[in-house]
C-alpha cells in the first residue's frame, strides 16, 4: 500500500510541476500576478511530493520489500543498512529518481530564496525549472519506474553489485547530482533572461551564487568518485578518461568558465551574451552526460539500438531543451546590449582567456568522447580514443592556463599592466623554481618535465598568496594595519585565492604520482619481503574471514622502515555470495600525503600469491586540492550572502537577513 502511495505521489508531482511550468508562463505573458505567484507554491509542493516518493522507495529498501521489482534486483536482506539505503540510487531507476529529487530541491530553494527577485524573472525561472522537472518525471514514470511490483514476491533479493557496496556510493552520486543538476538553475535564469530580453549586472549577481554552489558540489563529487575508483578498483589508477568520467568533467570545465565569466558580468557588465550562452551550454553538458550514461549508448551503439526506449526518450529531452534554448538564444541574443569596454590586457581580458581555454578544453574532451560513437554511426569504422589522446591535448591546453592563472587577479579591471603584474609574480615564480629544485636535490634525478610541472604547482600556490599579500599591503604598511586589511578582505578574495591554491595542490599531486610512483609486481610466499618507497613489506600469510554477505581472504603485511616496524597492512579479496562476484579490497597506508597501496592478485599453484605494491608519492594532494577548491567556492558563497541583498526594498527591513540566492 505504501509503495502505491509513493508511486501516486510521483504522478501527483508530475501534475504539480506541470502547473509550475505552464501557469507562471501564461502569467508573465498576460501580466497576471496571481498566475505568476503560483510558481513558488507549486515548486515547494512538487519538492514535497518527490521527497515523499523518494522516501517511500528508501523505505522499501530498508524493509527489503522484494515485491518491488527494483528492490528485488538491487538489494539483499543481509546487506548492511547503509548499503541498503545507498542502494536506492545504485541502479538506473533509483538514480533517476534522485536526479529528479535534486532538481525539484533546487526549484524549491529558488522559490524560497527569491522573494526579492523581480516577479516576472522569478516566475520565468521557476517555470523553466518546472519544464525540466516535467521532462524527467515523465521519463521516470514512462520508462524507468522504480515502483513496479512483482507477483508473487520473491523471498530473497539479487543483491547490489558488490563494487557498489561501499561508502563511496552513499556520497558520490548525491554530490555529483547536486553539481550536475545545480547548473539547471543557471540554465533557467538564462532562459528567463532571454524570454524577458533584458539582462544586467543584477542578473549575474543572482546567478553566480547558484553557479558557485553547483560548481563546488560537482568538484567534490568528481574528486570523491576519483578517490573511490582509486581505492576500490584495485589497480591504483585515479583518472581513466572514461566516457562516464568525461560526462561529469565536461560540465565541470564549462561550469568553471561560467563562474569566471559571470564575475566579469557582475562587476563590469561585459560578456553578457557569452555568459548567457555559457549558462545554457553548461547545463546542456549535464543533460548530455545524463544521456551518455543512462542510454547505454556508451557500452555499444548496438546495445542502444536494441533497446532504444530510454535512450530515445533522453535524446528527445536533450534535443528539446538544448535545441530550444539555443534557438531562443539565436533569436533573442541580439536584443541584449553589449556591456562595458575593456582593453585586451585587463582583468576582463584575463578572464576571457580563461574562458577561451576552458571551453576549448571542454569541447576537446567532448569531441574525444563522442568521436568514436559518431564515426561508428556514420562510417561503421571503430576507433578508440583513450587516455593518451586526452593527456596530450588536455595537457597542452592546460599549460598556458595554469601559467596565466596568477596573473588574472593581479591585473586591474578595464586596463591592466602586464609587466607590473609580472614583476609582482617574480617572487612566486622564484619560489616555484626553488622548491622544485629542492625536490630535485632530495630525489636526485627524475624526468625534467616533472620538475617543471612541480614548479608550476608551487608557483600557482605562491601566486595566489601573492594577491592576498599585496591587497593586505604586507610589508608596505604597519603590521597591525596590514593585519586589519587582511582580515577585512572580502570573502571572494579569499575564495579566489583558495580555489587557485587548490589547483596548485592538485597539480603537485598529479605530477608527483605520475612521475615518481613505483610499482612492484611479485609472487610472494609467507616470510618474503618487497621494498617500496623506502619501506620494507614482509608478507605474513593469508587469513580467511567472513562478512555479512561475503567471504574474504586477507593477506597480512608488516611494514618496516630501516629495520623498525612502522605499521601493518591488510589487503583482501572478497567473494560476494549472492552474486558469486569477487572484489579486491586494497590495503592502503598513508604517510603524509603519500600512500602505500597493496593489492592482491591470484594464488599460484606453488602456494605463492601475486602481490602488487605501489608507492604513490603525493597522491593525496590530488583530492586535497579539489577539497581546497571546493572550500574556495564555499568561502566565496558566504561573501555573496552578505552583499547580495542590494535589490531588496529598503522599507521592508526584515528581522532576519535572508540569503538572496
Amino acid at each position, binding site marked *: 500500500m505504501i509503495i502505491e502511495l509513493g508511486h501516486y505521489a510521483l504522478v501527483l508531482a508530475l501534475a504539480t510541476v506541470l502547473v509550475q511550468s505552464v501557469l507562471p508562463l501564461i502569467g508573465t505573458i498576460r501580466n497576471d500576478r496571481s498566475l505568476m505567484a503560483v510558481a513558488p507554491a507549486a515548486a515547494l509542493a512538487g519538492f514535497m511530493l518527490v521527497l515523499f516518493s523518494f522516501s517511500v522507495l528508501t523505505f522499501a529498501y530498508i524493509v527489503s520489500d522484494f515485491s518491488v521489482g527494483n528492490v528485488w534486483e538491487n538489494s539483499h536482506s543481509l546487506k548492511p543498512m547503509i548499503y541498503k539505503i545507498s542502494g536506492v540510487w545504485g541502479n538506473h531507476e533509483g538514480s533517476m529518481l534522485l536526479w529528479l529529487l535534486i532538481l525539484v530541491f533546487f526549484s524549491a530553494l529558488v522559490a524560497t530564496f527569491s522573494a526579492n527577485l523581480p516577479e516576472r524573472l522569478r516566475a520565468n525561472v521557476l517555470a523553466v525549472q518546472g519544464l525540466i522537472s516535467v521532462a524527467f518525471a515523465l521519463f521516470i514514470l514512462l520508462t524507468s519506474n522504480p515502483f513496479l511490483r512483482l507477483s508473487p514476491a520473491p523471498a530473497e533479493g539479487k543483491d547490489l553489485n558488490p563494487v557498489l557496496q561501499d561508502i563511496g556510493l552513499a556520497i558520490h552520486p548525491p554530490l555529483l547530482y547536486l553539481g550536475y543538476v545545480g547548473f539547471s538553475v543557471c540554465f533557467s535564469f538564462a532562459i528567463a533572461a532571454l524570454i524577458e530580453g533584458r539582462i544586467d*549586472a543584477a542578473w549575474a549577481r543572482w546567478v553566480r551564487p547558484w553557479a558557485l554552489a553547483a560548481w563546488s558540489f560537482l568538484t567534490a563529487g568528481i574528486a570523491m568518485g576519483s578517490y573511490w575508483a582509486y581505492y576500490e578498483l584495485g589497480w591504483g589508477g585515479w583518472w581513466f578518461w572514461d566516457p*562516464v568520467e568525461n560526462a561529469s568533467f565536461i560540465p565541470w570545465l564549462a561550469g568553471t568558465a561560467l563562474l569566471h565569466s559571470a564575475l566579469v558580468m557582475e562587476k563590469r557588465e561585459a560578456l553578457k551574451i557569452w555568459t548567457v550562452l555559457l549558462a545554457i551550454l553548461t547545463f546542456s553538458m549535464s543533460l548530455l552526460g545524463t544521456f551518455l550514461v543512462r542510454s547505454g549508448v*556508451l557500452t555499444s551503439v548496438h546495445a542502444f539500438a536494441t533497446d532504444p526506449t530510454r535512450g530515445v526518450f533522453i535524446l528527445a529531452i536533450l534535443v528539446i531543451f538544448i535545441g530550444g534554448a539555443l534557438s531562443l538564444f539565436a533569436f533573442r541574443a541580439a536584443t541584449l*546590449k553589449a556591456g562595458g*569596454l575593456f582593453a585586451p590586457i585587463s582583468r576582463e581580458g584575463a578572464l576571457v582567456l580563461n574562458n577561451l581555454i576552458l571551453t576549448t578544453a571542454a569541447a*576537446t574532451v567532448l569531441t574525444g568522447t563522442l568521436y568514436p560513437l559518431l564515426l561508428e554511426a556514420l562510417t561503421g569504422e571503430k576507433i*578508440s580514443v583513450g587516455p593518451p589522446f586526452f593527456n596530450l591535448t588536455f595537457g597542452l591546453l592546460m599549460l598556458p592556463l595554469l601559467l596565466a592563472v596568477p596573473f588574472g587577479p593581479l591585473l586591474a579591471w578595464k586596463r591592466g599592466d602586464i609587466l607590473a603584474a609580472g614583476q609582482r609574480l617574480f617572487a612566486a615564480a622564484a619560489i616555484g623554481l626553488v622548491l622544485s629544485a629542492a625536490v630535485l636535490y632530495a630525489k636526485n634525478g627524475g624526468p625534467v618535465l616533472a620538475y617543471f610541472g612541480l614548479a608550476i604547482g608551487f608557483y600557482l600556490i605562491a601566486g595566489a598568496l601573492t594577491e592576498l599579500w599585496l591587497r593586505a599591503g604586507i610589508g608596505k604598511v604597519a603590521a597591525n594595519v596590514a593585519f586589519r586589511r587582511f582580515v577585512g578582505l572580502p570573502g571572494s578574495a579569499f575564495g579566489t585565492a583558495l580555489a587557485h591554491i587548490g589547483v596548485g595542490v592538485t597539480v603537485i599531486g598529479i605530477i608527483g604520482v605520475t612521475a615518481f610512483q613505483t610499482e612492484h609486481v611479485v609472487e610472494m610466499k609467507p616470510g618474503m619481503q618487497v621494498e617500496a618507497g623506502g619501506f620494507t613489506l614482509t608478507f605474513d600469510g593469508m587469513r580467511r574471514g567472513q562478512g555479512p554477505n561475503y567471504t574474504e581472504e586477507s593477506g597480512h603485511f608488516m611494514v618496516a622502515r630501516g629495520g623498525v616496524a612502522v605499521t601493518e597492512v591488510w589487503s583482501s579479496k572478497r567473494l560476494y555470495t549472492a552474486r558469486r562476484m569477487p572484489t*579486491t579490497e586494497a590495503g592502503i597506508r598513508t604517510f603524509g600525503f603519500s600512500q602505500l597501496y597493496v593489492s592482491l592478485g591470484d594464488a599460484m599453484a606453488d602456494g605463492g600469491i601475486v602481490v602488487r605494491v605501489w608507492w604513490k608519492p603525493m597522491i593525496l594532494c590530488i583530492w586535497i586540492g579539489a577539497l581546497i577548491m571546493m572550500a574556495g567556492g564555499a568561502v566565496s558563497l558566504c561573501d555573496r550572502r552578505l552583499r547580495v541583498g542590494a535589490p531588496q526594498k529598503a522599507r521592508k527591513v526584515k528581522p532576519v537577513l535572508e540569503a538572496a540566492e
Partner: protein
Amino acid sequence: MMRRLLLAAGFILSALPAFAVNPDEVLSDPALEARARALSSQLRCMVCQNQSIDDSNAELARDLRLLVRERLANGDSDGAVIDYVVSRYGEFVLLNPRLRGETLLLWGAPAVLFLAGATAMILFVRRRGGGPTGTPLSEAEKAELEKLTGERN
C-alpha cells in the same frame, strides 16, 4: 564512475584467473620491459570498456601483452609492434588514434576551436566602437526614477 566500477566488476567476473601484469609475464631485460609497459598502456583491451591491456585482467589482454613482449624480444621497434598489432586487430586497438583522414577532425578540433575562439574574440574587440555601455532603464524604472526625483524636488 559508478558505471566504470560496474563494468570493471563485470570483467573481474568474466576473467577470474588473471590479474593485469603478472610476474611470470615480465621480461628479464628491464629496458625491454619498460618499452613493453609503455606500449601496453596505448593498446586497448578488446573485450573491455575503455581499459588498456596494461590495466586489464582479461584473458585476451594477457595474450596481447605476451604478444607485445614476444615481438619486442624478437627485436621489433615500437612502431613495428604497433603496426603488427593493428594489422591483426584493426585501428580499434589503439587508444591513441593515429592521424588519418578519419581522425583529422578529432586531432584538429582542439587547435581549430582554440583559433576560432581567439579570432572571434579579436574581431569582437576590434569591431566594437565606443557606443554607450550598460543597460538602459526600462520604462517602469524611468517612471519610478522620475517619481523619486520628483518627490525630492
